[in-house]
């Protein structure tokens, strides 16, 4: 069991100008192998033009328990959005 190929997370850039996006994971012995497998598993229908693979064990993630502490402070700061401010129509596009 311990000799299982490690898990890799796969990120694909869909087209020029877009970010890589997480699409799933797979097992592979090393990075090169992971990219080859990702090509077969996640891009059979021209879904991408670039692949990133990252060892799943290298990813640090925020904990669901921290949700409140991390995201609640943004709740009362609606002025960060441009729609908070009323600009009279006479001013024109802004």
């Amino acid at each position, binding site marked *: *069991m311990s*000799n*299982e*190929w490690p*898990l890799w997370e796969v990120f694909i850039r869909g087209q020029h100008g877009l970010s890589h996006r997480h699409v*799933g*994971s*797979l*097992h592979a*012995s*090393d990075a090169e*192998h992971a990219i080859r497998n990702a090509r*077969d*598993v996640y891009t*059979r*229908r021209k879904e991408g033009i670039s692949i990133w693979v990252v060892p799943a064990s290298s990813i640090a*993630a925020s*904990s*669901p328990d921290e949700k409140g502490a991390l995201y609640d402070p943004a709740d009362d700061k609606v002025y960060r959005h441009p729609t908070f401010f009323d600009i009279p129509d006479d001013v024109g596009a802004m």
Partner: protein
Amino acid sequence: MYAQMIKSEATQDDPEKVAAFQARIDAGDKIEPKDWMPEGYRKTLIRQIGQHAHSEIVGQLPEGNWITRAPTLERKAILLAKVQDEAGHGLYLYCAAETLGVSRDELTEMLLDGRMKYSSIFAYPTLTWADMGAVGWLVDGAAIMNQVPLQRTSYGPYARAMVRICKEESFHQRQGFDVMMKMANGTAAQKRMAQDALNRLWYPSLMMFGPSDSDSVHSEQSMAWKIKMNGNDELRQKFVDQTVPQAEYLGLTIPDENLKWNDAKGGYDFSQPDWSEFFDVLKGNGPCSVERIEARQKAWDDGAWVREARMAHAAKKRAQKIAAE
């Protein structure tokens, strides 16, 4: 379906936490791997997603049977692409199951030693080329009925895998129907083959949805958890209502004397499959049950040296890189 007769596991967690969890599901939240979840939810999902994954992988075998004998090069390339898709579907699903804390090797071992099942439909043989049409048309058609609603299932990784799968599955069904159209409009012998394939695969396809909901004590919990989205009878009815006109279009006859449009319910009345046969197949007594597991066992054993060699090679390369630095 691809996951049949999944018993929901009992949960012995803190009732307060369980209630909060249920409230999240009722509110339409997605549950993600690191979120708290009841043990029963986790175990039931491992079994359900695992069985679904095994079905995709074992499901390659009846179709792989015809790759080398496809009637044209184009049909061969298409069938190859479809079977490759099934491998991909299996891999998406295995990864989803692994996020619940089970390893890939454990899942494979549970399939091989019979602790986990695969769908009853794949224990049936594919005897002629027309079966490639009928499998795509009926089996993938039945699978889609179940998989489309599962895109909204409560477990995030499972729902996302289903989205990918559904995108690809529609090609499978249409290529199957395309084969059926060709056969049904071909020579008398070809049409007979198409009819024969329908005759043999009709009832096994109806079985895919599992026994009647009135006989299933586990549906309720799974429905509350939103890991089962529709009742078995409901989906089976939908499948029949959709498929009968397609068979008529092909000029083929559904092998059921009791099949009749029922105006009052707005659907067809039809005969149930032989449920004793279904239970027998699930126990591992299907016509191809032994052959299927033997094939998976052989692939597992024959691939062992590749899995080991790959790891040894990766370790060697790592060591060389460190030495060079």
